[in-house]
């Protein structure tokens, strides 16, 4: 029955994947709202810019690497190379956590430079909020990876369905691209 099901399956996207794409559109709208607010606010009096800490360049490299590793993990899963898959998914999760830690460290550097929330708001406050919200979305991705990590190491559950791995990797690439967009947006506009 199942094989028959697969063979007659129409070339249609899995509903959960489609749901994820719509959710991504929704998240994009949220950040579009915030970056448009940035542009509107930037033309008002009292605007101040900020020097972007070097650390953000390193975190960009980390998240790019994690995108590569999640893609390789997906490939390993599809080839049923479970040992490699487990390693790669661990690497991705570690890189994700590393990214979040680096973001927090960069925020602390900025804060120590005297860039707080008080007074007239400029690019710095937007940076905290926009990059902070992005980091929260990465946290969501890390949680998804951890769930898969536990599943991958549990001996009781045998998982042959690539959908959840594909969902996680799509989302992971999305937060990566979102970061690239936000980072370039800040570099360009400051």
């Amino acid at each position, binding site marked *: 029955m199942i094989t*028959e099901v697969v063979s007659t399956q129409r070339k249609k996207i*899995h509903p959960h994947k489609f749901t994820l794409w719509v959710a991504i559109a929704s998240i994009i709208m*949220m950040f579009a709202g915030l970056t448009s607010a940035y542009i509107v606010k930037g033309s008002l009096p009292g605007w101040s810019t900020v020097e972007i800490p070097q650390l953000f360049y390193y975190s960009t490299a980390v998240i790019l690497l994690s995108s590569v590793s999640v893609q390789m993990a997906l490939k390993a899963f599809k080839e049923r190379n479970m040992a490699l898959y487990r390693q790669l998914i661990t690497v991705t999760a570690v890189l994700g956590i590393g990214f979040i830690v680096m973001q927090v460290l960069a925020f602390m550097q900025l804060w120590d430079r005297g860039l707080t929330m008080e*007074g007239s708001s400029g690019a710095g406050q937007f940076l905290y909020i926009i990059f902070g919200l992005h980091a929260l979305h990465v946290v969501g991705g890390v949680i998804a990876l951890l769930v898969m990590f536990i599943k991958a190491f549990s001996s009781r559950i045998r998982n042959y369905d690539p959908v959840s791995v594909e969902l996680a990797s799509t989302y992971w690439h999305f937060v990566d691209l979102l970061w690239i967009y936000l980072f370039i947006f800040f570099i360009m506009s400051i």
Partner: protein
Amino acid sequence: MSDGAVLHGHPEVRTTHEVHHDEHHVHHHQETFITKYVFSQDHKMIAKQFLITGMIWGVLGGLMSVIFRLQIGYPDQSFPILEQILGRWAKGGKITADAYYALVTMHGTVLVFFVLTGGLSGTFANFLIPLQIGARDMASPFLNMLSYWFFFTASIVMLSSFFVQTGPFSGGWTAYPPLSALGDASPGSKTGMDLWITAMALFVVSSLLGGLNYISTVLNMRTKGMSMTRLPLTIWALFFTAVLGVLSFPVLLSGFILLLFDRHAGTSFYLSDIYMASTQQALPNEGGSAILFQHLFWFLGHPEVYIILLPAMGMVSEVLSTNSRKPIFGYMAMVGSLFAIAILAFLVWAHHMFVSGLNPFLGSVFVLLTLLIAIPSAIKVFNWITTLWRGNIRFTPGMLFAIGFVSLFISGGLTGIFLGNSTLDIHLHDTYFVVAHFHIVMGVASFFGMFCGIYHWFPKMYGRYLNNTMAYIHFWVTMIGAYLIFWPLHYAGLAGMPRRYLDYSSWESFNQFSDLNKFISTVAMIVFAVQLMFIFNFFYSIFKGRKVVTQNPWGSTTLEWTAPIRPGHGNWPGEIPEVHRWAYDYGKDGREFIPQTEPVNPDESKH
């Protein structure tokens, strides 16, 4: 047949949760009270949960309007009963200014979001999408359940703000800063506002989870033969509603996030050059812009009015066609105009801001775009009327409410053309003209769409009918009452009577309306009482209503009426029916109606 069975059940879904559902059918898995009525993943039960929660909010929101209408109608009198209900908010039976503004604010918030968004599209998108497209459930029943429970939590948080010492938020449902950003601005801006934002954030999550599901269900889970152009218009409307919600609510959320930072972290996104009278202090905030919040708010706020209106439009189209025994006139034009409205909804938000200091040249662009909405709206009205034209009309309660919707949509829509012009809006803004306009076109009209849906699909929801006598009284009193309340308000607004005043009697220029205001308040109370009768009818009929004995009581073509009278989880006990034609084959080739499941006869005439 085995091959057919595979195709019917949408195989790609079967690999995931469908398997689980089918098990339910086979074993008749015993459901506990908790899994059946509380944490249910059945879209029909979730729909009923949304509906009943929405009805509770509807009664509360309506009651608030009765209380503040008492103040507007009888500003010189005191009502000791108010002190018993509201305590110190109505000392001596006269409502305080703070309580008045809190009630107005909560009336707006509750009715716009909790009743006409959660209660309307939450109910009917959940109920109708799987049944009308031929799916066993939503794409993700679990997310669907979460959607309701986020809505429920949002409701509890919002409700709790009535019981904090400083009262609920009182700065208007649009929550403009600085009133919403500064705790010292008014009592309601303190804890009440924090609870308001929390509740709204939870509400946004709920409607995003719901919307995601509705979109992917409509696009991915239709039964065999159900192409997009064979969908009933209800589904098209609910689909566009979900798209609007998914793309506009996140922007509201970004606005709220910045607002939270202004409230609690000392940022100045929306605040600039403020001297607080209450604390005798100049605030350090500078360079912020309240208009920025208005942009972010109305980028949701305008699509929101279509989120409210489109489901009503969809259900009205379906009910009008079914009860005229005629195909809907101009099906593709109806779909196209829904699409046009959905696109334009994103391009007109600044028409709410003509007097806020928006650049007048920018305003003129928004005037043009706003007036463009008249075109798809007019197409829809024309098509509804031509559907009725020479139809064999059955005046069921649902049909009456559908016709009432068309009437209200025309009356309210026409005044929209006044307000869409920035030059006229400068005069009319913040007067009762605006109140009258949006209450008719968005508030009452959408309520009529909702009632139309409830009366029409109640037999499918509960396997019983609502009481007809009470339904007719409900319709006529509400219909006449709505016009008696809101029609005169247009004149008061044209004469300049401003919104949101506690007491008009101290203004000589508005004293002339004191009798009118008394009259309107009285009618509002009568209409409210009739809504209570409807609520009684609803709950009475769930248990004692006349039983539905035929599967298809309205002689309708769509798929939900091919399911059993009381469908279980999974909707169809056997295979999901296959669809062979569009949803509107009424009065064709001498037959009253042809269900969508009937194969096309080669001799059949083309529609």
